[in-house]
């Protein structure tokens, strides 16, 4: 518990500053209070870098690192292991691509809806290219003429002409497209999706890996990966190994009562092995998918995220962002394993990890990405919540060094809380962390048999953590009056099956969760003006008295429970906490058990007796308008 003690130390050092501010307020009077508080807040909050992704320059001399909380990209000199360049980019940068000639960097800015174009030599930002909503993963084509950008909020892929900077087209992705990888032969672009298909709540999730024909820039195939969620990075094995892909995932048993965590096997973590179809084309493609788990029977490795092959393909490195570990897979052993065990059995076999993982290397907090140097003489791990890189000796596979990227040395309470949020060690056998089911502080898009031991009883959909600070009470039945209750003993007893967080840790964790902001609203015009349809929808919202339970003043939640007739057959109670409606468009599925796949279904299917507002007299046009207004909240 190194982090916890650091947090207390940080508080201790900050206390005199807080006292000084307090005295200043008394001396200057109430008129200065606001500014003084703002100044205090700024001085008390260390400015972290939060590196999240990295890419090598083509010559391997530089490592470019994207820092999401610093809105910057860094250039690390691989020889000196020092940061030598820094460029400010847009808001919440998440990933980058390097042009094939190495002269240009492209950084995706998730909250600015842009890609920053940066001169790699001078590190000057040349311009920003407009993308879809929430740009995240990106890659150029082989000639550096086309840029593919995954839009995590828009659920599509922007195809940009880099000569003109214009968007040529958008291709439909699934949900929360995440990482984009150009195939080694340049013929395909692969796109992973964090969230799975919106299917019936009674079914296990099916995720999707999208394949784009890089010549036609059309969707060639959608590879279904059953039973898993949160497809992350993508790595392609060298040609001699068959050119298969490795795609890390989380495999939830969300239909089983989660209270069975102490039996193990509820949330497992692994990697999909995808053999893309050789023939391109819409119809004749039949890619093969096998899933293997990287956990051990009594120790889990949550948050499988970054992945990279050594140049010869002999080893693959996978980061476990919530276990502060890098697993090193011997691909020869992996091939043997695939030959010796039927593919249908592998997704549930917890003995694979010990067969194929030859090293488990400890990293710093929250390793989200790993890259291997082009010459194969080292691997670099991005420690997101440590503002550092871990350098791994290859092929010796030991941690050789830690590169400090220059973030603050002190660990604030918020930072400590964020680390706890991303740490699976508080769960029985390390099966999951808070973030495992709340990727990007949001939702995993599936419904869980969360607390009751009976199969199928009181199943509830995951709720977002974005912007929830002032939305108490919590939990779908509203039984938790505050986040301390929600995240404290309850989590320990029902979810983690461990001692959980101590009081100081809980305070830090809650502080962090309360600090999670809402993302910008993409459906509301910058000047706040509503469209005609949104205005009509607003009128309906108030005519139908929706604001009775969803008042605007309190994030569109009355902060209490009502029975709106949506209880399922095996639910204990029909009284359900009124959810806040902020950024409601980001949160499907809807209703407490995730039965409604869209906002429309709330009223077209799940309000047969008009208990959830008198809506049966609404026309289809009115419902569409209402939905358009709800998206602006």
């Amino acid at each position, binding site marked *: 518990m190194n982090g916890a003690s650091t947090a207390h130390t940080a508080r201790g050092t900050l206390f005199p500053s807080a006292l000084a501010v307090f005295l200043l307020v008394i001396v200057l009077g109430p008129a200065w209070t606001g500014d003084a508080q703002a100044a205090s807040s700024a001085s008390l909050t260390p400015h972290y870098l939060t590196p999240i992704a990295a890419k090598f320059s083509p010559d391997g001399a530089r490592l470019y690192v994207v820092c999401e909380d610093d809105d910057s990209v860094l250039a690390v000199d691989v020889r000196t292991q020092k940061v030598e360049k820094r460029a400010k980019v847009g808001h919440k940068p998440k990933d980058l691509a390097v042009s094939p000639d190495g002269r240009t960097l492209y950084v995706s800015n998730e909250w600015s809806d842009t890609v920053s174009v940066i001169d790699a030599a001078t590190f000057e930002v040349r311009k920003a290219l407009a993308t879809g909503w929430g740009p995240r993963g990106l890659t150029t084509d082989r000639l550096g003429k086309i840029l593919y950008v995954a839009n995590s909020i828009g659920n599509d892929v922007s195809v940009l002409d880099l000569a003109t900077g214009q968007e040529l087209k958008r291709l*439909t992705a699934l949900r929360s497209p995440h990482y984009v990888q150009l195939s080694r032969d340049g013929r395909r672009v692969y796109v992973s999706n964090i969230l799975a298909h919106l299917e019936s709540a009674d079914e296990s999730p099916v995720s999707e890996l999208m394949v784009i024909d890089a010549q036609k820039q059309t969707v060639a195939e*959608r590879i279904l990966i059953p039973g898993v969620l949160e497809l992350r990075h993508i790595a392609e094995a060298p040609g001699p190994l068959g050119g298969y892909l490795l795609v890390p995932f989380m495999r939830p048993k969300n239909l089983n009562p989660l209270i069975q965590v102490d039996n193990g096997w509820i949330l497992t973590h692994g990697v999909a092995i995808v053999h893309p179809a050789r023939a391109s084309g819409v119809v004749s493609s039949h890619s093969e998918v096998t899933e293997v788990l990287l956990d051990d029977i009594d120790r889990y490795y949550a948050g499988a995220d970054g992945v990279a092959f050594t140049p010869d393909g002999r080893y693959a490195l996978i980061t476990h962002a919530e276990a502060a570990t890098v697993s090193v897979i011997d691909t020869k052993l992996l091939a043997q394993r695939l030959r010796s065990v039927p593919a249908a059995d592998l997704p549930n076999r917890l003995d694979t990890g010990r067969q194929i993982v030859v090293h488990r290397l400890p990293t710093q907090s929250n390793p989200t990405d790993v890259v291997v140097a082009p010459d194969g003489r080292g691997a670099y791990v991005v420690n997101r919540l440590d503002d550092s890189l871990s350098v791994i000796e290859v092929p010796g596979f030991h941690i050789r060094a830690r590169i400090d990227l220059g973030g603050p040395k002190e660990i604030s309470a918020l930072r400590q809380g964020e680390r706890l949020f991303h740490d699976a060690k508080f769960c029985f056998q390390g099966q999951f962390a808070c973030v495992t089911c709340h990727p990007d502080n949001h939702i995993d898009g599936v419904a869980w048999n969360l607390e009751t031991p009976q199969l199928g009883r009181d199943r509830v959909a995951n709720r977002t953590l974005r912007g929830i600070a002032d939305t108490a009470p919590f939990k779908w039945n509203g039984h938790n009056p505050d986040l301390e209750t929600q995240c404290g003993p309850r989590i320990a007893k029902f979810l983690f099956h461990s001692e959980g967080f101590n009081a100081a840790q809980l305070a830090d964790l809650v502080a962090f969760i309360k600090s999670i902001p809402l993302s910008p609203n993409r459906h509301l015009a910058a000047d706040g003006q509503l469209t005609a349809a949104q205005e009509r929808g607003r009128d309906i919202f108030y005519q139908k008295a929706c604001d009775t339970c969803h008042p605007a003043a309190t994030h569109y939640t009355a902060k209490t429970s009502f029975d709106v007739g949506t209880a399922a057959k095996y639910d204990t109670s029909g009284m359900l906490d009124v959810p806040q409606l902020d950024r409601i*468009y980001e949160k499907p599925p809807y209703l407490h058990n995730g039965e409604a796949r*869209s906002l429309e279904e709330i009223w077209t299917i799940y309000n047969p007796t008009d208990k959830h507002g008198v809506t049966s007299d609404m026309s289809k*046009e009115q419902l*569409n308008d209402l939905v358009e207004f709800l998206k602006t909240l």
Partner: protein
Amino acid sequence: MRSAQQARWLLSMVGFLWFLPVACAQTPALYTKWENFTTANGMPDAKVFSVAVDGARVWAGTENGLVLIENSKVSKVYTTADGLPNRVVTGVAIDKKTGDLWLSTFGGLSQFSGGEFHNYDSLTTGLANNIVYGVAIQDEFVWVATTAGINRLNTRTGEWAIFSEKNAPMHEPWAYGIAVGDKKVYVAVWGGGVLEYDIAEGYWKPYTDPDGEMEIVLFKNQGLIHVIVSNISYNHDTKMFWASTYFGMSGYDGHNWYNYLSTDSGLASDFINATQTRGDDVWACTDKGLSYLNFKTNTWVTYRPNKDTGKGEIVITAADKKVTKVETATSLAHNYVLNMAFQGEDIWVATAAGLSHGIHESHKEGKSNEQARSSR
């Protein structure tokens, strides 16, 4: 060597003779060779509602699934078991930019992308009604003709707009077909004529039968020939739309109307299910065969099978009303024609008894010409 030269000379002469009538602007090139795809060779149903061409691929919407034809054979039939929302596929639109197919069905709208169906119905989305007759792509917008009005889906924002008798000049909400023009979108409305949507300005303009007489045309070329409009197409070359009605065919260039009845032209029937058009060519899909109009020369050609002989019959009606008939060994699968599509110089025709492929005779030699036409 000498024989090869002779063969080449002979081929070029054949080609010259073939195009000679066209050059003389009297008789258009005729489709004398047909191959048919029916339930006997892989089609899942006799009735084919729609057909669309994507390069070498041909997609057909039938009463029992979506069919892909490649290399002159049915290569795949998609059914509800594959994710299709309904067995009845009334329309197929290809988004040339993304490669995705958009399907109108009797179970809603469907996007076929990368081998997977993503479906939109009236319970889960803003779609007005699940009975969908037509679909068309306008940049990032998908236009949908339903029995409860016209829908427009913004694929980037997810916004659904509905245009019906409540907010558009429609007598009836029953929309049958949609065509995207250069700056406008045209909708065929059953009983409501043609609706024109100005994309930039966002307003609707109706075209209805000016004489108001259901069965009579009082003045030729006065306006839309009839308000029961079954489908519509747009000619990007001539900037005209062509409306098919159950009482004749109308073309409009923004200033003048051009109306055709079977009684005063070579049109096979006034009962027309659809039109397709490009260049000087206008094709009318009727209940009595497939009619072709060369708009420039006013020459008509009608294709239909002869029920008595089992052979094909081509009826050529010149501008001076002179009629010439040609018998062919092969023909359309059926004389009830629902729609058609172009594939280079070839045509594909949806009929009540299968899908017919009209093969242009100089198919091999006219490769560059074919590519030029395909690119339109």
